[in-house]
Structures are given as C-alpha cells and as structure tokens.
C-alpha cells in the first residue's frame, strides 16, 4: 500500500502532469515573474535613478564651479551661464548644505539629470537678474535625484537662496499651496495671483509633484526677493545659509 503510493508520486514527478496542470504552472511562473519585474521597477525608480542622477548632478555642479573659479566674476561672459547651468539653489529647510544645480528647461531630459530646471514652457521664467518677474523652477519629488523630495519641510518665512556666479539672491517663502491641479499653469505667472500678490515683484516659485510617489497634483512654494548680496572672493555664505 505504502509502496504503491510512493510509486504514484514518482510517476507524477516524472512528467505525468496533465496539460491543464502544466498550463497553470506556466501561468503561475509568469505571474511571479511579472511581480518580480514590478518590484525591480520600484527599486529602479526610487533608488537607481537617484544614484545615476546624483552622480550626474555632482559632476555638472563641479564643472560649473570650476568654470566660475577659472573666470573671475567681473571678466566672465555674464553672471548667468545658461549652457551648463545658471547657478545653485540653496534651501536650508530641505537639509543642511542642501544645494542643487539649476539648468534651463523643465523637460524630462533636463530634470532627469538630477537638477532643478527653470521653466521655458508654457510660461517662461524670469531669471533672478530681471527687474521684475517670477523665477519658476521644477525638480523631481522622487527618483532622478529627488531634489524636491522634502519640499513639504519648507514653511512660511524660510529662506530660499539662489547663488549665481556673482550674486546671492535671498528669497523668503510667503505662501505654500500643498495641492493644485497639474494644469494650473497660473501658479507660474509672472505675478502669481494665486499666492495673493497683485503687483509685479521679484518672485520665486518651486513646483513638484505631490503626494509623494505619484504625480496626481502639484505642490507649489512661493517666495519673494528680500535682498541680494554680492559674492565675495571666498564665496562667503550669506547669513541665511550659515
């Protein structure tokens, strides 16, 4: 009796499976494979793209700093070199020593380099040098450097500092919109009325997606220029960053 049962099992293992069992088994394996691939995609999105983007951004940032060091502020082609990046954004609220390179454009290609991009489309940004206007920026919330991951840690009154080759532009946050439609282009207007301002001024706008890990809404932070400070020979940090 016992022997017979054992024999029955071994026969089954040798390939006596019916076509239904074989099909179910293959489908099961495919489903497990699909699950593993999706898990790997999460690893890719939230970790690997950060590794690549951070590496890229560090290299690009070093290059900009070296260029600045080579040509002293007063003899350079201009304080905003738009080819490799126009400068650095410092936001102490997002971490001590937080800085990110700012480049032109908000295309996927630019943002995936782990930088913050200033808008050229649909509403072009005004550069910080402009007499009035809105310096509008976007960066990734997750993956590809996740430079604006901690945007929710910025509060009213926090400083945002943009560093160009020769000037520190110190902005102060005055309004946060923690959720808006992704089609709400008005937030990047030169006079961002939704923030409560009605007169031309020198504004800065940070945009990224929210809630974290999705792209359903946009998170907006508005600030306005408080003062500017010339960069000195040793690039001494302004008081807000010390």
């Amino acid at each position, binding site marked *: 009796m016992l022997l017979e049962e054992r024999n029955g099992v071994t026969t089954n293992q040798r390939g006596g499976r019916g076509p239904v069992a074989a099909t179910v088994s*293959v489908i099961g394996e495919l489903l497990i494979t699909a699950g593993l691939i999706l898990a790997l995609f999460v690893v890719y999105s939230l970790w690997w793209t950060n590794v690549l983007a951070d590496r890229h951004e560090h290299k690009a940032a070093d290059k900009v700093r070296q260029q600045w060091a080579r040509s002293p502020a007063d003899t350079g082609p201009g304080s905003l070199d738009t080819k490799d990046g126009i400068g650095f954004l410092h936001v102490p609220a997002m971490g001590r020593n937080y800085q990110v390179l700012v480049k032109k454009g908000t295309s996927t290609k630019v*943002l995936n380099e782990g930088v913050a991009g200033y808008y050229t489309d649909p509403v072009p940004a005004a550069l910080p040098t402009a007499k009035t206007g809105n310096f509008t920026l976007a960066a*990734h919330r997750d993956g590809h450097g996740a430079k604006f991951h901690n945007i929710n840690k910025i509060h009213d009154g926090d400083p945002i500092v943009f560093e160009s080759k020769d000037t520190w532009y110190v902005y102060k946050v005055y309004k946060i919109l923690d959720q808006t439609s992704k089609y709400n*282009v008005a937030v990047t207007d030169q006079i961002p009325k939704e923030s409560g301002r009605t007169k031309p001024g020198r504004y800065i706008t940070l*945009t990224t*997606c929210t809630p974290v890990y999705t792209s359903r809404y946009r998170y907006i932070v508005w600030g306005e220029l408080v003062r500017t400070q010339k960069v000195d020979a040793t690039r001494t940090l302004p008081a807000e960053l010390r």
Partner: protein
Amino acid sequence: MYGWIWRHLPGNAWVRAMISLVLVLAVVYLLFQYIFPWAEPLLPFNEVTVDNGMAAVR
C-alpha cells in the same frame, strides 16, 4: 518554464546554479539599462511640472 530552463542547462547542479545566477543578473542589467528607462516616461509617476495638458500629447 523555469523547470524547463533548469533541465536544459548543462553541467551538474552547481554549474547550473552559477549559470542561472549569471542569467538572472543579465536580465536585471537589461531591465535597468534599457527596458526601465524606456518604460518610465510612459508611466504617469514622475511628472513634476505644471503645463496646459500638452505633456499628455508629447
């Protein structure tokens, strides 16, 4: 499917295990290097800019 692959790999169990590992790593490499970068922009997880709906067409 995996059983079929296993049975068709040469060598003893150790050799097969090593070959399997190499195959798995090759698949992961292909996914990370080519397939995920291609698929990512097609998925709506990482749009951070405001726009007037043109991105959906782009």
